[in-house]
């Protein structure tokens, strides 16, 4: 008796597209999946991977503020991460604290603020948990407009400053000598990272966003290709992880963010096998 079972699975296959929340989640996921590795490429190669994680924790404080003031949490998350990213960069340049220490201060500080704000709002609720680990259910129609609009802005700015970003990432000193305004470009990169982190939170969640920026890039780096081809491979890994992860989380009722990250980790493990030497 195989056929009835098969029939049920095939109807189920398209079930995802019958729910508007699932379609919204998938659309938002694809936008995030496209821009996260673009930013991640520059962060990973500059040894800035941890900044994504730090900004994610900052955004949690932003989300808590949103819950408390009853404003859309994405908006408060964007405001808090962008502001903090500029302060972190200033602190790094001033050399009054080490780069990583600046990150550690912001990571723990914003987490502390978030926890205190949450206790003020009388504890965790389901909505907040969704922001921690990501869920396709979190994405509302206005969120999708924000993610789409700002996602396009991030992608456009990356495109416009692509060659400056590449040069600074490879060799900051020579880039500066050649007349590139390195300080402005560095600030731009970190602000774009802040935007991307905030936009990704509804889907992958605060705790997993850095994975989406880092793992596809590290996977692509195993193939030792040109800069351009490495970006393409990272994009493919990221999109595959997002689409398969969202579909799997929908059908098997799993955590969306967690499934996406696990799928990308499997691809990373495979890429390690590919690399000779």
């Amino acid at each position, binding site marked *: 008796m195989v056929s009835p079972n098969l029939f049920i699975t095939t109807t189920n296959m398209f079930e995802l597209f019958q729910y508007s929340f699932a379609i919204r989640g998938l659309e938002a996921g694809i936008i995030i999946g496209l821009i996260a590795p673009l930013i991640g490429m520059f962060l990973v190669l500059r040894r800035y991977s941890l900044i994504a994680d730090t900004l994610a924790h900052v955004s949690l404080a932003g989300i808590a503020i949103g819950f408390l003031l009853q404003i859309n949490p994405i908006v408060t998350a964007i405001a808090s991460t962008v502001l903090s990213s500029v302060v972190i960069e200033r602190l790094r340049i001033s050399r009054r604290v080490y780069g990583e220490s600046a990150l550690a201060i912001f990571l723990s500080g914003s987490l502390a603020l978030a926890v205190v704000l949450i206790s003020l709002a009388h504890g965790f609720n389901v909505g907040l948990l969704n922001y921690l680990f990501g869920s396709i259910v979190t994405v509302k129609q206005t969120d999708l407009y924000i993610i789409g609009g700002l996602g396009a802005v991030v992608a456009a700015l990356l495109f416009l400053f692509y060659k400056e970003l590449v040069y600074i990432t490879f*060799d900051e000193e020579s880039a*500066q000598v*050649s007349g590139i305004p390195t300080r402005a470009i560095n600030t731009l990169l970190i602000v774009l990272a802040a935007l991307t982190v905030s936009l990704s939170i509804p889907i992958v969640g605060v705790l997993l966003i850095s994975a989406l920026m880092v793992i596809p890039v590290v996977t692509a780096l195993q193939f*030792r290709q040109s800069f351009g081809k*490495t970006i393409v491979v990272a994009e493919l890994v990221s999109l595959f992880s997002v689409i398969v992860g969202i579909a799997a989380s929908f059908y098997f009722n799993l955590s969306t963010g967690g499934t996406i990250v696990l799928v990308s980790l499997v691809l990373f493990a495979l890429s390690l096998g590919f690399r000779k030497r």
Partner: protein
Amino acid sequence: MSVDHSLNIIEVNKVSFAYKESLVLKEVSLNIHKGDYLGMIGPNGGGKTTLIKMMLGLLTPTSGTVKLFGQDIRTFKEWSRVGYVPQKVINFDVNFPATVFEVVAMGRYGKRGLFRSLTKEDRRVVQESLRQVEMWEFRDRIIGDLSGGQQQRAFIARALAGQPEVIFLDEPMAGVDAQAQDQFYQLLKKLNRDLELTLVFISHDIEAVVNEVTEIAFVNRTLSYDDDPKKFVKEEMKKLYGESKFIHHHHKHV
């Protein structure tokens, strides 16, 4: 030669640099003329790199002035006239995903300006620069996969791609094997003579530098300059040798 050697490209005037409390350079003055091939020697920590970084605008002097092409460095904007080959071979990421072509193309970025992508003309100049250093056939290789000497030639090509009038090289021989070094010196000589490029070259290898450069500067907190490197080094050696008479060896008997 048709190069006007009397033209000052870089004027360093009574420049001092202090890092926190300690004085790295004290009232250093130096003129670099068009077509010079200046070797800068001196002990580690003597201030060679600091001096070069001030001429490139990467560091600001504590006192004194630096002029590039007659303009004060603080308002200087024509950075495409200046090329730079940093001390890269020892400290760059060998896993960086970039082909030789992509690295050399970076040399065009500053010239092209913001918001513009590279044109056909840029690609032609990149190709020409790669041929100049005999690295065209390596254009699709990942930079980290090449030998030290090949990487260094790629970095020279990157500087050339900006079509500068002066190139600064900071210890370019570090991590380059002896045979590649010979080739490298020939390349520099060619650039200086045929392309009439002004070269400023930092090295701690006095012997090699003396045989190559046409001007020499010895930097050790202060600067002494000579346009006869061989004579200069002979005299410096004599000074050093003379001093060594006063060095006593103490042997401890246990």
